[in-house]
């Protein structure tokens, strides 16, 4: 994302790590669910765990909360060892489980009250916090209805409220946006961003929905078969998993075949251009591949000049931004190979 992220810059020092794991491993029999995981999440950032179902995301989260023991390696959450001091960790970490459930016979507010009691909040503090988080997730109107009557999206939002009741320093959200309609997703993501900006807490969320992760996360970790194959911002991941080339889309109006070959030759003659791919169908843009990727800006300028010289009529000219989809596919296939 092209967004100013001062928080992340500031968080570059080690002391700001809210989550840090070293060679964290979990084996179930012969299956290695999480394999030598080295992960760092800083204060004030949203970290996205990306991976298919069964890639080890939830297992990692459970180990961070001390809900399952690592086979080897270690984890630190807020500087605490979740294996030895799980209660201190859980007091400060809000967790939204995958497929979160509530006591259907109780109202949303009663469910949150139970969580507040389990966290040892004083009654007045609890009531205040509950009203506050219900407002934040937009459930104030339905707070006193039985959870039985809630839609799945409302339950999900109640789950986020539940994770926030204890005023955590870190939020761990397992698939927070599943079952929420597209408009609701935008609201939730905005809420998360606001929480980070206002309260300065850190969020780790897992998802398999790439666009959401890309739109809200400062940094991303890509999980494949229990291993973290990449970690960083989208740009950093693109640099890691790209093949060192950049692609430019060039839209041209070319009425005759002669024009086409002229364009092919002109584009191909530019320095740094390694490939010129004409479109499969008329009207689509041409793909110009540049190596090294850093030469992309210069080449784009030269294309403009060439187009004027050769009197080729340009319709579009733009660099192709690597999408998280591409990066993810590359990362997963490359590590599988």
């Amino acid at each position, binding site marked *: 994302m092209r967004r100013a992220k001062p928080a992340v810059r500031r968080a570059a020092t080690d002391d700001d790590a809210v989550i840090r794991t*070293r060679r964290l491993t979990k084996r179930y029999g012969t299956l290695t669910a999480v394999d030598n995981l080295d992960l760092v999440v800083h204060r004030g950032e949203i970290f996205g765990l990306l991976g298919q179902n069964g890639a080890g995301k939830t297992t990692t989260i459970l180990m961070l909360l001390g809900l399952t023991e690592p086979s*080897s390696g270690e984890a630190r959450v807020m500087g605490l060892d979740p294996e030895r001091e799980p209660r201190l960790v859980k007091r400060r970490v809000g*967790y939204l489980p995958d497929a*979160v*459930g509530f006591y259907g016979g109780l109202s949303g507010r009663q469910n949150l009250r139970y969580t507040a009691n*389990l966290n*040892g909040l004083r009654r007045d503090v609890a009531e205040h916090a509950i009203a506050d988080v219900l407002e934040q997730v937009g459930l104030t109107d339905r707070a006193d209805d039985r959870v039985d009557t809630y839609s799945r999206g409302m339950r999900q939002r109640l789950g986020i409220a539940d994770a926030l009741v204890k005023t955590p320093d870190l939020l761990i959200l397992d698939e927070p946006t599943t079952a929420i309609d597209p408009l609701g997703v935008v609201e939730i993501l905005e809420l998360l961003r606001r929480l980070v900006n206002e309260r300065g807490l850190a969020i780790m969320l897992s998802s398999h929905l790439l666009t959401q992760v890309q739109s809200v996360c400062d940094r991303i970790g890509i999980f494949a078969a229990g291993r973290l194959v990449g970690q960083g911002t989208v740009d950093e991941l693109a640099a890691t998993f790209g093949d060192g080339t950049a692609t430019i889309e060039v839209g041209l109006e070319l009425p005759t075949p002669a024009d086409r070959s002229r364009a092919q030759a002109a584009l191909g003659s530019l320095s740094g251009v390694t490939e010129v791919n004409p479109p499969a169908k008329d009207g689509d843009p041409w793909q110009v591949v540049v190596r090294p990727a850093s030469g992309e800006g210069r080449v784009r300028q030269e294309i403009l000049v060439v187009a004027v010289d050769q009197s080729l009529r340009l319709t579009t000219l733009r660099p192709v931004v690597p999408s998280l989809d591409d990066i993810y596919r590359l990362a997963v296939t490359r590590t599988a190979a």
Partner: protein
Amino acid sequence: MSAADTTLTADPVVAEPAAATPRDPLPRAGWRVVAAKELGDHLTSVRFVVLLVVLGLAAAIPLYFAADQIRSIAPQASGFSAVFLALFTLGSQDISVLRVYEFVGIVAPLLGLAFAFDAVNGERSEGTLPRLLAQPIHRDDVINGKFAAGMAVIGLVLVVVVGFIAGFGMLRLGIVPHGNEVLRLLAWVIITFLYVGVWLAFGLLLSVLVRRAATAALIGFGIWLLITIFGQLITTLVNGILAPAADATPDAILANAQIQQFITRLLPSTLYRETSVVLLNPSVNQISAPTSIGQVQQAQQQIQSLFSLDQSFLLVWPQVVALVFLLVVCFAAAYVAFMRQEVRA
């Protein structure tokens, strides 16, 4: 664990100092919060009302017969000992099962099972377990709290039902318990509480081990049926097979009687019934089969007299210990299984 320790010391970067203490102290007794919530759930549940009615009926029906008999012996009541306890021990002269303690013994296990069979697997299938365990409580707070809440409801129901019977006796029949009778009644309530506790712990064990609540309920009620209804049938059958030949020596007959007794005592319902009979009836001085001819003769020469409560306890303490043992074993099994289970199914 040791591997983690060595890497910890080898790499100081990871070993950050423990961060600032949390703003609020950790809750001290998580099990109490769990128990309070569970108790609230139980008391407002349909289940609670149904069980109260069922157990109430189970007590009221034999009580009707008991009252009848007490009225009939009322003229000579001065010679009759422990009239008040007769409310619980007397019943229909034709049907021996029709007595309060027998009926309570049959129905009470339902109480235990009903408040436990979905305790853990229910949370699991509703998806509330991971959320609950992610709160700053100990893991065993969950199962301890649930057990405590179950025991509290059971205690409440028993006190209500026994209070109803005692109240009926005092108001309608005009019989007032003496101090000794009150103590015996109290002891019986505690034993019943323990016995239901065994079933509660067993239900809890099922709820931990069996993934689906409906299956757990079916297994639990199946075993209840087997023990309370068919239990005596089965032991009679086994004992019939083991019965000594007609020309056996008295010693062989005695030895056989002991084996038969051992077999019947494998059932918790037998343990409970034997304890109830002795505690509620001060004149009962023997529940075990005699072990020698001498004891047989002794028993025949004994003068009928009333026992004090501690003397009665001496008779049944093995049964009481066995009940406590069963309770502890069931709960410990549930506890250990729960602690070792993965959070995710």
